[in-house]
C-alpha cells in the first residue's frame, strides 16, 4: 500500500495538518501536499476510471502531465470538474470526488466495457454503434452518455470572482526551473523588465529532487538564493502559481495565476495575465514518457520521476517494493531516492543491452539487482500492482521470472515541452540520438520585427542534462535581453553561467513497445493514452484501416485529445504509428500544439465581464422614467428601449393595442433618443451625401427634411432615415437606432480612404440630443400647450424643421411622420430630455398622455406600409425590390450601390418584391413564413415564391396585416398565395397594397 513516510518531505509542513474528503471519506494531509500526494499518503491508489473502458486508474504523474487523476473539486456553485489532483494544493476542507465512475468508484458498470473491449476499437464512435439506428438512440447512447465523459459541467453559476491584468515585459520567462531562473538572472542583470512565471507554487523544477549541485551548493539552496536576488530587483516580477497558457501573435501571452484555492468572500480566486512581451523564453522543461508494456495502466505503475517526486517532496511511499523499468540512466535516480528513504527496489529492468554508466554503477554498488536487456512482460494485479513478470526486451514476451512488488516506476525517456514554442508556428526537429522532438532554432515563431520571438531554453530546448540546461538558460536570458531589452547590447550580463555538477548519463535506447516482439495479445493491453484509453493495438488498427496521417489517426483513435493534449502519449503514439506504416518518425510528424497548455477556468477568461457588466448598457436621458413606469424592455443594440408600457396587469399585447389606438385617436409620446444623428458639414457635404444616399440631398433647401436610403456597393439596402439641411454646408443625417455607429464608420471610411480630398467633416451626435416624437391628431395641441414655437400647419408644414424655444427649452422640431399621423419629433440637448418629456406628458394629460413603445411604433408603421431596416431588408434586398424607386435618383451619374444595382439578376423581373398580405380569415400570418409554389426543387423540397417580412395584429383595422416579398408581387394584386405553418396548416393570404391605412395620406396633412 502507499503510505506517508515517518520522515522527510521537503515541501510538506507536518506541523500543519489539513482535513479533506474524497468521495465522502474524511482524510488528512499536510500543508504543502497536493491532492495527489495526500491521496497517496492515505493509500488512495485508485482515483478514477478510464474514459472508454472504465478500467481502474491510479496516479501516474506528479504534475501537469497527469492523465488519470482528474477529480471534481468543491460543491454547488464552487464545483469545478477535471481538476488535476497533481497540480491542486491541498487546503482545509477540500471536497474532492472521483469522475467517470457510475455508480461508484470501487465497483461500476463501466467495467463491462472492458470485458466488451472488442466492441470498442479505434474509431468506435464512427462504426460500432451507428447501426441499427434505433439501438443507438435507445440503448447504446443513453448507457454510454451515463457512464462516460470527462467529469460533469457545474450546474450553478460560478460563485467565485476572477480578475484580469495587463502587463508588458522585455523578457517573459515561462518556467521557474533552474533554466528559467538562470535565464531570468541573466536578463534581469541588464535592467530589462523581466517576468518569471512558474505554474507550481515552488521554484527550481526538478533540480532539488534530482539532487544536483549548482555552483557548489545543493540545488535547493542555490534556487532559494537566486530567488532572493530576483525578488530584490525592481525590474523583475515573480509570478508563482502562474501557468503560461498560450503564446499568440506578436508576443501576446495569456497566463493564469491562481491567487487562492479557497478564497475569502469577495476575493478573487484566479487572475488572467494579458502580457505583451518582446521576447519569450520557453523554459518549460520536459515530460517523462511512459513505456508501452502490457498492464502499464494498472494503479501503482507510475512515471519514475513522479515516484521520485512523491518520495522526496512529500515523503510518500508508493509501496514497500518498487520495480524500476527504464531505457535510460535518469530513472536510476528514482532507485536512489527510494533506497535513501529506506524502501526496497527488488530490480531495475533496463531495456538497453548494457547498463554501465555512473548511475547504474552506483546502484549496483548498493546491492540492487540491475538487469540489462530486460523488460516487463506484463503487470499482474487488477485493482493495483501485485507483481511484474519479466522477459527479454529483444524477445516476444516469454516470461523469465516474476517479481512481487507494490509499485512500478517506468521511464521511456524525456520529451521537451514544446507547446509554447509551437503555438505560433515554431517548428520542431527530430533528435535521433535522444529520440525526441526538440525546437528547431532555425525555424522559430517570428514576431513583428521578423525575428524569433520565442527562445526555448533548458530541457525545453533539448538540454536535458543539468549542466547543459543551466548554460542554455543563461544564454537564452542574455540573448533575450539583448534583443528585447532597451539597454545597449554591451550592457548584457557578462556573468558566467551557473555551473551544475551531475553524473554523466549514457544514451537512452528508444523503446516504443515492450518487449519489441510483443504480439497483439500484449499490444491490446499496452496503453499509450491513459486519459482517452488508446492502446498500441488501436493505433496499429487505425494505420491498417488507412488513417496514416497523424492528424487523421489522432481523431480516429482519440489519441492526445481532450484535456491531456498528448502530454504523455504524443511521442509514443507517433512512434507506434511510424512503426505501423514503416515510416521514419520525423516523416510522420507531430500533431498541432494549441493553447492552452493546461485547461484554463472559463471564469478566468471572463474575468469581471459577467452579469450586469458583461457589456455596456446605453440608456437614454428618459430611461429612468420608463423604468419607473414599468416599461417592458426590448434590447436594440446596446440600448434598452421600452417595448410597451403595460398598465395594471395588462398583457403586452393589450398594452400595444391600447398604445396604437391612443396614437391613432388622440396622441402618444415616443422616446426616439436612440435614433442615430450624424452631423455632416463642409463645402463638399452635399456632394458627399449625394454619393452616400440613392436620392439627391444637395438640392434639399435649408429648413427642409428629406427621406433617404443608403446602400452598400452591392446595391443592397443598408440603412434609411431622414436628412435635415441645417445650413448651406450642414446636414443632419438620421440613421436607424442600431445603425448609427456603423453608418458613421461607413462615412469615415469613404472620406478617409477614397475621397480624402473632399472637404467634409462628420460627427456622431447621437447621444448629444434627446429626441421625443409627439404623434397623433392632438399632437399640435400638445406642443401649443408648451408654447414658444408656431406649429401651425401654415407656419410649419410637413417635412420641414424649425428651431426655437419650446416651453423654455431650446429645441429643434422636425415635422416628419413614421406613423401616418400628424407628428413632431423634438430634439433638445440630452440634459434637458427628461424635463421636456415630463412637460409634454403634462401638456398631453387632457388627451390621455400615452407613452408608447417600439412595438406600437412597428404596428403603426406597418399599417402605413413603411419599411423597417432589418425586417423588410436582410442584406439581399434592393430599394427597387421594396418599390422605393421614387427615392432613387435617375439623374445622378453615381452613388454607392448604383453599379451593383445594374447587374442583371438585380433587375430581373422575377425578383421577390414588396406587397401587402391580408389573410382570408383575418388571422395574423406567422413571422418569416414562406409562400409555397407548385413543384419541388432539386432537393425535393417545395418551391417557394415569397416570404413574410412583417406581420402584426392591427388594432386600427381589427385584423392581421402583413408585408412580404413575393415573386413579381406588385403584378399579382388580388392573387391568393398559401403559407404553410409549423403545425401543418396552410394560411391563405391575398396579395394587396402594403398601405393598409389612410392610403391618401390625409391624416398627416393637417
Amino acid at each position, binding site marked *: 500500500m502507499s503510505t506517508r513516510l515517518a520522515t522527510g518531505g521537503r515541501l510538506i509542513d507536518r506541523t500543519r495538518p489539513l482535513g479533506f474528503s474524497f468521495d465522502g471519506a474524511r482524510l488528512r494531509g499536510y500543508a504543502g501536499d497536493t491532492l495527489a500526494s495526500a491521496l497517496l499518503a492515505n493509500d488512495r491508489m485508485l482515483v478514477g476510471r478510464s474514459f472508454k473502458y472504465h478500467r481502474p486508474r491510479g496516479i501516474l504523474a506528479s504534475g501537469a502531465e497527469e492523465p488519470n487523476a482528474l477529480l471534481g473539486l468543491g460543491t454547488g456553485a464552487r464545483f469545478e470538474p477535471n481538476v488535476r489532483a497533481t497540480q491542486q494544493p491541498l487546503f482545509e476542507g477540500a471536497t474532492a470526488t472521483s469522475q467517470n465512475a457510475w455508480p461508484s468508484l470501487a465497483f461500476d458498470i463501466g467495467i463491462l466495457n472492458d470485458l466488451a473491449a472488442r466492441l470498442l476499437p479505434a474509431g468506435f464512435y464512427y462504426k460500432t454503434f451507428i447501426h441499427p439506428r434505433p439501438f443507438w438512440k435507445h440503448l447504446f447512447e443513453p448507457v454510454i452518455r451515463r457512464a462516460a465523459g470527462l467529469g460533469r459541467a457545474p450546474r450553478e453559476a460560478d460563485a467565485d470572482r476572477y480578475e484580469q491584468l495587463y502587463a508588458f515585459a522585455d523578457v517573459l520567462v515561462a518556467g521557474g526551473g533552474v533554466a528559467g531562473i538562470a535565464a531570468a538572472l541573466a536578463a534581469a542583470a541588464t535592467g530589462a523588465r523581466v517576468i518569471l512565471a512558474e505554474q507550481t507554487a515552488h521554484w527550481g523544477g526538478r533540480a532539488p529532487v534530482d539532487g544536483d549541485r549548482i555552483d557548489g551548493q545543493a540545488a535547493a539552496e542555490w534556487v532559494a538564493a537566486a530567488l532572493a536576488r530576483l525578488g530584490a530587483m525592481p525590474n523583475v516580477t515573480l509570478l508563482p502559481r502562474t501557468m503560461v497558457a498560450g503564446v499568440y501573435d506578436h508576443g501576446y501571452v495569456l497566463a493564469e495565476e491562481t491567487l487562492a484555492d479557497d478564497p475569502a468572500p469577495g476575493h478573487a480566486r484566479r487572475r488572467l495575465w494579458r502580457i505583451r512581451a518582446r521576447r519569450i523564453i520557453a523554459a518549460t522543461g520536459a515530460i517523462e514518457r511512459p513505456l508501452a508494456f502490457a498492464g502499464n495502466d494498472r494503479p501503482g505503475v507510475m512515471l519514475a520521476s513522479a515516484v521520485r517526486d512523491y518520495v522526496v517532496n512529500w515523503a510518500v511511499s508508493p509501496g514497500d517494493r518498487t520495480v524500476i523499468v527504464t531505457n535510460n540512466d535518469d530513472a536510476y535516480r528514482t532507485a536512489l531516492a527510494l533506497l535513501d528513504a529506506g524502501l526496497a527496489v527488488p530490480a531495475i529492468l533496463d531495456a538497453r543491452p548494457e547498463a554501465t554508466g555512473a548511475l547504474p554503477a552506483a546502484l549496483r554498488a548498493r546491492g540492487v539487482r540491475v538487469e540489462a536487456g530486460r523488460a516487463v512482460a506484463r503487470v499482474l494485479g487488477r485493482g493495483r500492482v501485485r507483481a511484474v513478470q519479466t522477459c527479454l526486451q529483444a524477445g516476444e514476451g516469454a516470461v523469465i521470472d516474476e517479481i512481487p512488488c507494490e509499485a512500478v516506476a517506468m521511464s521511456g525517456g524525456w520529451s521537451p515541452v514544446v507547446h509554447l514554442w509551437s503555438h*505560433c508556428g515554431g517548428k520542431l526537429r527530430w533528435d535521433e540520438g535522444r529520440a525526441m522532438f526538440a525546437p528547431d532554432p532555425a525555424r522559430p515563431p517570428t514576431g513583428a520585427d*521578423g525575428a524569433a520571438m520565442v527562445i526555448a531554453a533548458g530541457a525545453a530546448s533539448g538540454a536535458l542534462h543539468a549542466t547543459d540546461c543551466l548554460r542554455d538558460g543563461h544564454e537564452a536570458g542574455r540573448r533575450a535581453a539583448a534583443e528585447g531589452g532597451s539597454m545597449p547590447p554591451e550592457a548584457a550580463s557578462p556573468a558566467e553561467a551557473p555551473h551544475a555538477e551531475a553524473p554523466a548519463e549514457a544514451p537512452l535506447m528508444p523503446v516504443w513497445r515492450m518487449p519489441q516482439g510483443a504480439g497483439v495479445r500484449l499490444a491490446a493491453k499496452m496503453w499509450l493514452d491513459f486519459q482517452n484509453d488508446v492502446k498500441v493495438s488501436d493505433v496499429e488498427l487505425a494505420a491498417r484501416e488507412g488513417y496514416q496521417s497523424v492528424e487523421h489517426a489522432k481523431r480516429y483513435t482519440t489519441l492526445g485529445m481532450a484535456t491531456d493534449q498528448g502530454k504523455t502519449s504524443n511521442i509514443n503514439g507517433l512512434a507506434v504509428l511510424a512503426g505501423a506504416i514503416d515510416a521514419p518518425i520525423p516523416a510522420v510528424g507531430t500533431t498541432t500544439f494549441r493553447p492552452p497548455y493546461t485547461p484554463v477556468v472559463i471564469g478566468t477568461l471572463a474575468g469581471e465581464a459577467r452579469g450586469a457588466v458583461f457589456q455596456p448598457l446605453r440608456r437614454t436621458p428618459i430611461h429612468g422614467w420608463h423604468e419607473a413606469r414599468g416599461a417592458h424592455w426590448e434590447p436594440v443594440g446596446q440600448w434598452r428601449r421600452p417595448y410597451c408600457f403595460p398598465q395594471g396587469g395588462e398583457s403586452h399585447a393589450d398594452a400595444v393595442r391600447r398604445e396604437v389606438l391612443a396614437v391613432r385617436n388622440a396622441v402618444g409620446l415616443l422616446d426616439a433618443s436612440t435614433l442615430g444623428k450624424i452631423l455632416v458639414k463642409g463645402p463638399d457635404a452635399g456632394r458627399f451625401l449625394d454619393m452616400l444616399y440613392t436620392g439627391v440631398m444637395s438640392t434639399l433647401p435649408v429648413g427642409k427634411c428629406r427621406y433617404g436610403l443608403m446602400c452598400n456597393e452591392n446595391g443592397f439596402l443598408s440603412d434609411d432615415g431622414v436628412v435635415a439641411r441645417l445650413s448651406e454646408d450642414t446636414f443632419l443625417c438620421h440613421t436607424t437606432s442600431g445603425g448609427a455607429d456603423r453608418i458613421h*464608420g461607413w462615412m469615415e471610411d469613404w472620406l478617409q*480612404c*477614397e475621397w480624402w480630398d473632399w472637404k467634409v467633416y462628420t460627427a456622431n451626435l447621437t447621444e448629444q440630443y434627446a429626441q421625443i416624437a409627439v404623434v397623433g391628431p392632438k399632437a399640435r395641441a400638445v406642443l401649443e400647450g408648451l408654447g414658444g414655437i408656431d406649429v401651425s400647419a401654415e407656419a410649419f408644414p410637413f417635412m420641414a424643421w424649425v428651431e426655437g424655444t419650446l416651453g423654455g427649452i431650446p429645441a429643434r422640431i422636425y415635422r416628419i411622420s413614421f406613423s401616418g399621423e400628424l407628428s413632431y419629433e423634438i430634439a433638445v440637448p440630452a440634459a434637458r430630455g427628461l424635463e421636456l418629456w415630463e412637460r409634454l406628458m403634462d401638456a398631453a394629460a387632457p388627451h390621455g398622455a400615452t407613452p408608447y413603445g417600439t412595438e406600437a411604433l412597428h404596428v403603426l408603421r406597418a399599417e402605413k406600409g413603411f419599411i423597417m431596416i432589418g425586417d423588410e431588408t436582410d442584406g439581399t434586398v434592393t430599394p427597387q425590390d421594396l418599390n422605393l424607386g421614387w427615392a432613387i435618383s435617375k439623374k445622378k451619374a453615381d452613388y454607392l450601390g448604383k453599379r451593383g444595382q445594374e*447587374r442583371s439578376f438585380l433587375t430581373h423581373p422575377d425578383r421577390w418584391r414588396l406587397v401587402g398580405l391580408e389573410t382570408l380569415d383575418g388571422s395574423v400570418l406567422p413571422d418569416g413564413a414562406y409562400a409555397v409554389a407548385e413543384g419541388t426543387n432539386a432537393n425535393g423540397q417545395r418551391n417557394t415564391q415569397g416570404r413574410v417580412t412583417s406581420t402584426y395584429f392591427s388594432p386600427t383595422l381589427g385584423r392581421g396585416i402583413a408585408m412580404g416579398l413575393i415573386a413579381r408581387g406588385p403584378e399579382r394584386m388580388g392573387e391568393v398565395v398559401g403559407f404553410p405553418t409549423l403545425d401543418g396548416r396552410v394560411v391563405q393570404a391575398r396579395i394587396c397594397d402594403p398601405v393598409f391605412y389612410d392610403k391618401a395620406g390625409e391624416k398627416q396633412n393637417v
Partner: protein
Amino acid sequence: MLTLTCPNCGVAADETELAPGGEAHLKRFGPGASDDDFEAYMFARANPKGIHFERWRHAYGCGKWFLAARCTATLEVFATYPAQSAAPPEAVLAAIRARRPGWEGRS
C-alpha cells in the same frame, strides 16, 4: 494578436483596438464599369501567403484608417502608412525590399 502602430496618432495598438478593413489599394469601379471590372472590385481579393497590404481602422483609438504592409506567414510588419495612399509609397517598398531582397512587388 497583432500590434500595429497607427501612423495617425502614433499609438502601438493591440488588435482589439483595431478593426480590419481587408485588402488595401483597391480601385473603385462604379457606373459604366464592365461586369468583369466590377466583379473584381467587389469580390476578387488577394489572399497571399507572404507580403500583403491591408486596411485597418484604429477604431477604439483615434478612429482613423491606415494601411499596413506585413507578411501573413511570418507576421512581420514592414510598415504602416497613411490611408491616403493610392499605392504603397516608395519608403514602404524599400522597407519590404530591405527584408525580402528577392521580392518582385505586388502581383
